[in-house]
């Protein structure tokens, strides 16, 4: 048991782990594939019986208020939460969606923040072939020319340009040092969850 009577849980919290079905999922709870009971709504854990549902089973439920007792009265309207916010949007933003925000390496170590607008890709000239997994996909030569089609320019390599070479190696070293620093900070072994 992870959460006992009247403890506050949020959706996804595992309330009870068990081998077999000693407990069943009641109000605002669900049962995982290994019979784990977890919460689907935020609220307070209740352990109860519901003879109208089943005479012998014992249930774990989540009540919205601490003072409420489960099971809810039969034939009363269900208590439901919306769990949503109303946001005003302009009609344009619905069409333009931001795909990704962050550092994108473009060509030759040129790093910048980008916002990409999703546009319907021009797919008229696309030829799909059946791949090994019976899924239709683009041919490899087409994938290989994707950058060219997208018009991505790479700075040409000039042999003997020592200044450019020094720039690149310095950038690489800095990146490596930063990476090493991150690794060092984490320390302590074991997996740490992103928070």
């Amino acid at each position, binding site marked *: 048991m992870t959460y006992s009577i009247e403890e*506050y*849980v*949020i*959706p996804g*919290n595992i309330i009870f782990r068990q081998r077999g079905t000693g407990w069943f999922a009641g109000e605002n709870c669900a049962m995982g594939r290994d019979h784990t009971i977890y919460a689907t709504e*935020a609220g307070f854990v209740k352990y109860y019986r519901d003879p109208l549902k089943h005479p012998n089973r014992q249930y774990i439920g989540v009540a919205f208020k601490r003072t409420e007792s489960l099971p809810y009265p*039969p*034939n*009363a*309207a*269900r*208590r*439901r*939460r*919306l*769990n*949503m*916010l*109303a*946001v*005003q*949007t*302009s*009609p344009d933003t*619905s069409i333009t969606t931001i795909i990704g925000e962050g550092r994108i390496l473009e060509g030759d170590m040129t790093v910048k923040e980008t916002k990409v607008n999703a546009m319907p890709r021009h797919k008229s000239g696309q030829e799909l072939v059946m791949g090994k997994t019976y899924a239709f996909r683009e041919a490899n030569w087409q994938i290989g020319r994707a950058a060219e089609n997208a018009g991505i320019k790479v700075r040409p390599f000039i042999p003997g340009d020592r200044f450019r070479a020094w720039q690149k190696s310095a950038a690489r070293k800095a990146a490596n040092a930063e990476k090493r620093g991150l690794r060092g900070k984490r320390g302590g072994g074991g997996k740490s969850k992103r*928070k």
Partner: protein
Amino acid sequence: MPIGSRRRRAALKDSLNIPFEQLPYQCFQDARKVLQDDRQEKIKQIEVARLRIANLKAQDEAISGGKQAKENRLRSMHNRLEELKILADINDPVVKKKHEDGEGDMNKPIYRYLADKQWRQYRRKILEQRISQLNLVPDILPNLDPVAEVDLAFGRHKIPHGDFVDSLISENVPRLKVQVFDKGERLVTVVVVDPDVPIVQRDGFDYRCHFIASNIPISPTSTSIALNQLDLRVKDASAKHIALPWLPPTAHRGAPYHRLAVFLLRQADGKVIDTAKVGDSTKRDGFILRSFMDKQKLTPVGVTVFRTKWDENMAGVMQRAGLGDQVNMEFKRKRVEPLPYKKKDGARYR
């Protein structure tokens, strides 16, 4: 929909259509004779039953053992009479044929019985499933036992129970086809309720009434209720049927789907509802069908349901319904704050 099974229709197509009396099969004719004799016997029993009922009605209450006992006995005798009426015709091949051809006269008990049986065999089961799947019980009513078949259609679009309907289609007033399976004319009220109106302030849902029309006469033979033509020919204001006119169903972008439940409610015998008063006193938002039914003495007899959600035509529908300010409102999931991480007691790791 064609009537009769594929096999039956194929057999009918190349049959000679000879009446049953002239069919040259000895065994068939003998069997018909047996059934006819049985029918004569049942008709005699019906006459006897009618006579008995008349006698009991004429009898003094004191002799028949009190008012309650007399009523109980009369009721069971009536039930037996109805049963005999059905038993008299149930084995008639012509009746079976007429029922299967859809030519049955719904004024006669046998055809009503057969139609009811057919409805309960499959279509009512689906309706029951939709009622429980979509939680109409207990969200709108505490319990529901449909006894009349209600079919919903917007123009020529027939809507199966629980189907998603395009907002442009459901903007128009629907029509109902109502088949009741018990005799007589009665007045019904049609109410359309949406139990899924999102209320952000309360973090929950509310009810909204989309339509109320009362005093609609319905019988086994008059089955059509065109809700858009109810008041077309009514001049007198007090005889109007519609208390609350049709409000097109709407759903916001991103919000969960809305269920629109259409209820057919039978009015108490002889009670006529004052629609003008109901229209004035009823608020659309926060409409509770349970209390409305208690107030107006209504009992649910039929139900159907359709669903609506945001689609490409919804913005236009909302504009026309006077909800233009809500067109750009979008519902997004609320972030649930994670619980603070509690470091476990160090001792347990040693």
